């Protein structure tokens, strides 16, 4: 088998390895084909038909996300027929979707909205019976609203292929088709471990992280490293009005991709716990009183200096922390060795 094959997309040639899809080949050329059910880190399914293209020798329109590139293939991605067909697909999805976008957490951050805008779908001509379901929000982490689901199946594939818990799956068929845990139960009480990876894959507001659902649109996202276990997942802290309001993940993180666990995705609220200390405390007559940094640091320095003078540096010890950064651990051992003059430094978890 040749190790590369050449095809033509919108009049431009591109060489790709066998097995490449037309979608991937087009992206190499910088040609944008809209998608909905496709995610680069999941098995392509060709379910939504938003990515339709024309290819010589292929009857009708084909889904670019599953169509394998072939040698000599000639593909068109942007004809009037294609635009019309894609718009129809999106219009049908909207016809079966709640219309009150303003009330949705994903408003202005919704792939369905963006597709409709990109494809010029403004009016929905068909307004028939719409699916009606109760949202599942009886847990602290995830809101699942089947009415907003576009049946792209990304959450089902994420749950099967990435998190490999097989909790979310299809139930019923046709108009009644929907995604649920086994036996159409709520998430709480199913085998779900609330990793929330399905939330990261959902194109609409059908699966939402409760903290973000409640907070509204964040002002910024800051990529950082999770403070819990030693895996070191990366994620984005979502910040609004100077507060961390939630956590999002995507496939670009080196170690974890879009995977996180319930702690990383939903446990960061400890940062804003009302129990956080906000001023130095000094114990006076057995009770803590708040004080200034100046007084607190002055007291610590004076006592440490006094104990060192009276008993020598080895009468002082420090415990460093696996919770602190490398730079802070480095500084504390430097402080103990170079400033206090002892090797009495250890950290709490020797594991």
């Amino acid at each position, binding site marked *: 088998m040749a190790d590369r094959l050449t095809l033509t997309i919108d009049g431009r040639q591109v060489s790709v390895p066998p097995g490449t899809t037309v979608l991937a080949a087009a992206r190499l050329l910088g040609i944008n084909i809209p998608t909905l059910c496709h995610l680069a880190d999941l098995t392509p399914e060709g379910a939504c038909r938003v990515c339709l293209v024309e290819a010589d020798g292929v009857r009708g329109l084909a889904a670019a996300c599953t169509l394998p590139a072939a040698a000599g293939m000639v593909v068109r991605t942007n004809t009037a027929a294609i635009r019309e067909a894609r718009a129809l697909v999106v219009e049908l999805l909207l016809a079966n979707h709640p219309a009150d976008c303003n009330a949705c957490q994903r408003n202005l951050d919704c792939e369905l909205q963006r597709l409709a805008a990109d494809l010029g779908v403004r009016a929905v001509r068909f307004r028939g019976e719409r699916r009606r379901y109760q949202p599942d929000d009886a847990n*602290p982490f995830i809101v699942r609203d089947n009415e907003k689901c576009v049946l792209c199946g990304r959450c089902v594939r994420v749950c099967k292929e990435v998190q490999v818990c097989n909790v979310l799956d299809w139930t019923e068929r046709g108009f009644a088709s929907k995604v649920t845990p086994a036996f159409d139960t709520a998430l709480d009480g199913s085998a779900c471990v609330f990793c929330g990876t399905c939330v990261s894959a959902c194109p609409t507001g059908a699966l939402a992280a409760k903290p973000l659902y409640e907070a509204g649109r964040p002002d910024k996202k800051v990529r*950082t490293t999770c403070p819990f276990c030693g895996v070191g997942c990366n994620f984005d802290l979502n910040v609004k009005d100077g507060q961390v309001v939630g956590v999002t993940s995507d496939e670009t993180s080196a170690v974890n991709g879009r995977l996180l666990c319930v702690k990383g995705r*939903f446990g960061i609220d400890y940062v804003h716990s009302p129990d956080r200390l906000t001023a130095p405390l000094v114990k006076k007559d057995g009770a803590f009183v708040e004080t200034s940094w100046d007084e*607190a640091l002055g*007291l610590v320095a004076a006592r440490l200096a006094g104990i060192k003078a009276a008993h020598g540096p080895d009468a002082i010890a420090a415990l*460093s922390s696996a919770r602190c950064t490398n730079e802070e651990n480095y500084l504390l051992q430097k402080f*103990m060795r170079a*400033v206090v003059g002892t090797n*009495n430094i250890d*950290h709490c978890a020797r594991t």
Partner: protein
Amino acid sequence: MAGLATSFGSGAMTNSIGEIPDNKVMFVIGANPPEAHPVIGAKMRQALKRGARLIVADPRKTELAAAAHVWLRLRPGTDVALINGLLNIIIENSWHDDAFIAECTTGFAAVAAVAAQYPPDRVERITGVPAPLLRQAAEMYATAERAAIFYTLGITEHTCGTDNVMSLANLAMLTGNVGKPAAGVNPLRGQNNVQGACDMGALPNFLPGYQQLKWPDVRQKFATAWEAAVPDKPGYTLPDMFDAAVRGDLKAMFIMGEDPVLSDADAHHVRKGLESLDFLVCQNLFLTETAKLADVVLPAASFAEKDGTFTTTERRIQRVRQAIAPIGGSRPDWRIICDLAARLGYPLTYGSPEEIMAEIAALTPVYAGVSYPRLAAAGLQWPVPSAGHPGTPYLHENGKFACGLGYFQPIEYEPPAEVPDADYPFLLTTGRILYHYNVSTHRRAARLTAHRPEEKIMVHPADAARLGLADGAAAAVASRRGRVRAKAQVTDAVPPGVVWMSFHFPATPTNEITSGAYDKVTKTYEYKVCAVKIEAAP
């Protein structure tokens, strides 16, 4: 850490998390990744989906134990006997890798002699694992083209923790499973930056990058850079500190970011040590149980409020980025240390954590090529010996160990320090659950707490019936050191005679009852095994 450092010359995960989905054979011992390292758990499930074979050694029927091709349900604390048994079977069947042993290792003969003392029937008597299962596990691991070992606290939190780790190193070297992808010996670090705290020399006998304190040229290098003498006497380890405080030799402690009263074994001894001090300073986000004993508490900023780096279990140095301003009057730990140093007459004038990292890189060979711009996209896995070096996904390539040759260490089985008896007839082992993190999320992380508000003691149905304990009923668990209460969870996930608890809940301070015995080398407490009695609590 000490065990792997002795055998391989480097105490870290030899391989990478990204290799896990491609693993062919995984041997998971004393680890429960789906709960303690959930993303590694997911990658292991991906490997299983792709046809990997799984061997699990665990007294508890964990998710992975239930999914394993071979589940070795050993008695807690008998790991060394189990591993020696595997060595025995592998050598008897000539499944070992003669070429690797000859070219890359030393000390094999002594290990073979010890292994010969552990025939399957003896190992069955010690561990409770049926001999045919041992044979299956040995064959699956040893005859695989490549196989990887994963372990965590279940292996290290024993009086024989170092022995356990060196035994696993023996097993990997015997079969040539080191120095290639999807193989190796992989300790999974429990906390986000344990690896980094060790790397940075927050250890009484090492300077940053595992440079030995005892080497004069190392001390000289740091003394020159720091313009201060570096003392040559090794310091106290953590358990030594509390002993020294009780004796009156230690007068003051500075505790940054930790809560040893809740997190360390034998809480009474820890508390007594801290109460014996003349002066205690704690620097923390919260008024922890430990901080309540302090004379001064300094409010620290959280990871979201500062810049820096963490080093993960796979040796990956990654950025921590400031997202919000420090809450209230709190300050980042690094600033507090700088300010304190200045008041003691030693100005530390870093403008940012990036400048501190530049100093670390200059003094630490395994971090030499690290700089913030290079960490931006995906971090770097140490060793990173130079600015152009791409980092190191797996260690000891082609069997070239960091210490030259890999050292086989003959290890004999020793029973745990405390075993059940008539007064304390149950064996308690401890671990982590999915929904909490150490002692720090309960109550403070509101959503996790709402979902999992309290401790549950796992008790086997037969034991529960004898004790008259119903599922969900209040129970009291007592050891020679203390007594705690929690609800019973009646489940056959634990074998008869064994009970299991986590240590996440201040209302059930499990470490009031765990053992203060610790490993003779690393001074890691034996959290994993102690004798207890249980009764229904009114």
